[in-house]
């Protein structure tokens, strides 16, 4: 057991330790760092064992390029894209920070399934609807109301009941954009008749597991987030 033997055993011992550290983690970023360290430990072990070519290749290919690949690909992996059209109280952008009933709901949902939402702004409702249909956006929040925005190329999940004002011309406006919305002050409430409706999240057909989890998340009774958020934003006035 020469000194050099001990050195080799030390480097070789490092590998299972790094491997165990990598796989013990559930958070993928820690696992990737562990994988990088395993690559470096392997490179050291190969160099000590008299295999310089393999050590160089393992260091560059195994330690560097694989970690770069994981980090680059993973950095966009663990998020679902939520398109939004601004609607006061539901989705509003105050000084670079998004807040609103739907935003908090989805962030809470993301925290539960360890996949965080990334919010993408959209100007027009139609652009967002197309994006959800194409599958580029996994969800859409904003001025979408259950009975009217129903369509077969995406799912609608009602999250908040509201009242809809329909004019005879078929054009309708929901309560929130009427109360807080700026541009449609001129809409006279008297001539429109009122209907019951639900603000809803539009889900693209492709996001299979997101839909199942979100429906069950909203469905189970002992989930306190929805009543809490309602109290926080609307204070039971609705």
């Amino acid at each position, binding site marked *: 057991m020469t000194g050099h033997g001990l050195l080799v055993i030390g480097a070789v011992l490092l590998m299972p330790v790094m491997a165990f550290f990598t796989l013990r983690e559930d958070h993928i970023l820690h696992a990737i760092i562990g994988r990088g360290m395993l690559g470096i430990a392997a490179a050291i072990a190969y160099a000590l064992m008299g295999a*310089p070519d393999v050590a160089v*290749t393992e260091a560059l*290919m195994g330690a560097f390029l694989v970690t770069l690949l994981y980090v680059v690909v993973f950095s966009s992996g663990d998020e679902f894209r939520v398109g939004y059209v601004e609607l006061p109280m539901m989705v509003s952008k105050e000084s670079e920070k998004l807040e609103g009933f739907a935003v908090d709901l989805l962030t809470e949902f993301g925290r539960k399934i360890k996949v965080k939402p990334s919010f993408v702004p959209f100007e027009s409702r139609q652009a967002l609807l197309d994006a959800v249909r194409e599958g*580029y956006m996994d969800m859409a929040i904003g001025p979408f109301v259950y009975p009217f925005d129903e369509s077969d190329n995406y799912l609608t999940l009602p999250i908040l009941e509201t009242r809809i004002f329909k004019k005879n011309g078929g054009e309708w406006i929901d309560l929130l954009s009427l109360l807080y919305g700026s541009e449609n002050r001129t809409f006279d409430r008297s001539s429109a008749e009122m209907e019951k409706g639900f603000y809803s999240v539009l889900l693209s057909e492709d996001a299979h597991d997101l839909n199942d989890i979100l429906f069950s998340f909203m469905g189970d009774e002992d989930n306190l987030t929805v009543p809490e958020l309602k109290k926080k934003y609307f204070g039971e006035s609705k």
Partner: protein
Amino acid sequence: MRIKFDIRKAYFAAAIVVVALLAVIPRTDLGREYNAALIAAKAGIPNTVTAIYLKNRLYDTMFEVMVFSISISGALYFLKKENKFHLEDTLFTDPATIIIFRGCAMLSFLSACALATVGHLSPGGGFAAGVAFGTSMVIQSLISDRNHLSNYLSMERPERFEKSSWMLILAISLLTFSGIIPSNGIWGSLLSGGWVPLLNILIMIKVGLGTWALSLGFLDHKWIF
């Protein structure tokens, strides 16, 4: 599908038994005489590993270049087909980072050339050189202005370059199989050992451009950072 937890434990237990048997196999290769010198002498280059890997077993290395290139073009086929989100022009703007990055790019480019050209004399491989070359190109493309780079080195020219070096590797391996190998030259000199130095450089170019194309694919797809 409720996988009862114990079934996968049973699988893992079976694996432990198999690996244990693997560990206690008596080692029969003690004291076997390694004729590294014979291989090196025949190939005319000191680095025996490169001699085997680029001359005796060139047939394997040819397949390896195929594997690497096809997986890169397969990944690019998906990356190019995907839609492109809005892409920022440059990722790092403050001058300090740019200078440091430019230094790293030059450093890795130099190490790539060293690994490739002297690969058959001292340890160093074509593939490792390729990865280093690819890294320097990636760093360069990260810091410089995107459209400056794209019109300067539009993807068509490297693509053609990559495909031609791929074809050259195949041609040289055909020549090596049929025995047409230039003379071994002086032992230890830069151009010794038949096709090996040229192959090393070609593999460096091929793998370097492949890695760079893959990273550009990621960059376009806004996956980087």
